[in-house]
């Protein structure tokens, strides 16, 4: 279980080094988006219109945070289940997205697109939302404020604890881990 310290935006050479099961500590800026924001982004791409956020080299965190209490940068902010974004992810990967953070596994079309575009999928610990909020030092809504918890936010993160769940070589930490412990 190798450990990596990474800063966004991600480069191809960073991503190629990552193997399923490795630990990553991520710092820099990441964007939040879940179901509704993904639909809007993909609709804009299909209409040939400009996106409200850059995608090149960027990382999207699948999260809809709890409201921000007074005195905090953000409320509890753990990952949501990623497979719901699978219908949209390949389009975003084709447009430069390099990393995704969520929980649970990804489908074959996403895996194929990750291989083709050299991208990585990280797992954060589901339900560890108060802990993860401590790694987020700033949060600003940058698009779709009307979506509330589902609005796109730009987060500044420091040492966000992640595991490489599915890498750009086809490695899969879920399959490998489960095979090892199945009886």
């Amino acid at each position, binding site marked *: 279980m190798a450990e990596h310290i990474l800063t966004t935006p991600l480069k191809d050479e960073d991503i190629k080094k990552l193997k399923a099961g490795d630990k990553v500590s991520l710092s820099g800026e990441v964007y939040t988006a879940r179901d509704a924001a993904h639909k809007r982004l993909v609709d804009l791409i299909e209409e040939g219109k400009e996106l409200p956020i850059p995608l090149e080299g960027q990382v999207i965190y699948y999260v809809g945070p709890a409201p921000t209490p007074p005195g905090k940068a953000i409320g509890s902010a753990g990952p*949501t289940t990623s497979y719901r974004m699978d219908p949209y992810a390949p389009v975003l990967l084709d447009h430069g997205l390099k990393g995704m953070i969520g929980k649970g596994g990804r489908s074959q079309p996403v895996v194929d697109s990750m291989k083709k575009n050299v991208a990585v999928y990280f797992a954060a610990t589901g339900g560890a939302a108060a802990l993860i909020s401590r790694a987020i030092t700033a949060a600003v809504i940058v698009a779709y404020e009307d979506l509330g918890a589902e609005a796109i936010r730009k987060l500044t993160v420091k040492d966000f604890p992640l595991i490489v769940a599915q890498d750009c070589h086809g490695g899969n930490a879920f399959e490998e881990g489960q095979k090892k*412990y199945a009886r």
Partner: protein
Amino acid sequence: MREIKAAKITEEIARLCQEANFELEDDVQRALEKAHAAEESPAGKEVLRQILENSGIAREERMPMCQDTGLAVIFAELGQDAHIAGGDFETAVNAGVSRGYTEGYLRKSALADPVRGGNTKDNTPAVIHLTLVPGDKLKLWVVPKGGGSENMSRIAMMKPADGIEGIKKFVVENVREASGNPCPPIVVGVGIGGTFERCAQLAKKALLREIGSEHADPFYAGLEKELLTLVNDTGVGPMGLGGRTTALAVHIEVAPRHIASFPVAMNINCHAARHKYIEL
């Protein structure tokens, strides 16, 4: 006739919605600590360590353990000799949910219309299961239910010929397929029998039981134990990354069925297994 004030119901629901989200229940905390100590997989152990650290932070800072603070599911048993004064039950419960989710900075995840959307902005309406019972007390269970684990829940209208082997296969295959999605280690509520809707409700009700408790009927207590072993043998492990602990408990609730039907439902709860209880 004993009087229970509607305002008291609102106050308690508001408090319990917050506590259920801020504080891991003792039974769940104990089960997770035990799992952490026993876990052989390094990734699984790290996930469990983060979950326990998270529980401490949430409790201390009164922050929700998970950003998905759920739809508010309320089970209520109302004694038929009690009278609710100063308002109606459903309004009182929803006022409590609204207050609790707003005051506690909990996420509002309720859409007014399932197809056309529109956030209700205070997480109402609650999903209320009310039964009338003898006595003059009101028992309330507050069970905030997140989407990730709810989405991995299933129901099957099996053939009576499928029998006990059918139940085992159904539960184990669904846990394997759900993999890391419902935030394991999970609690599995299994409903067996009844009609379509009763069976689903039994599976949800099974999640109210204390972790480590056994079914009163030794036959079902044995089946719970066997299912827990089979589920943990899948190797799914914490967050699906592989490990010895896939479930903290399997709880079964049963009801009489039609001679032609054999409904089996499983409702999955995440590792926080949020549940709070009060008697008024």
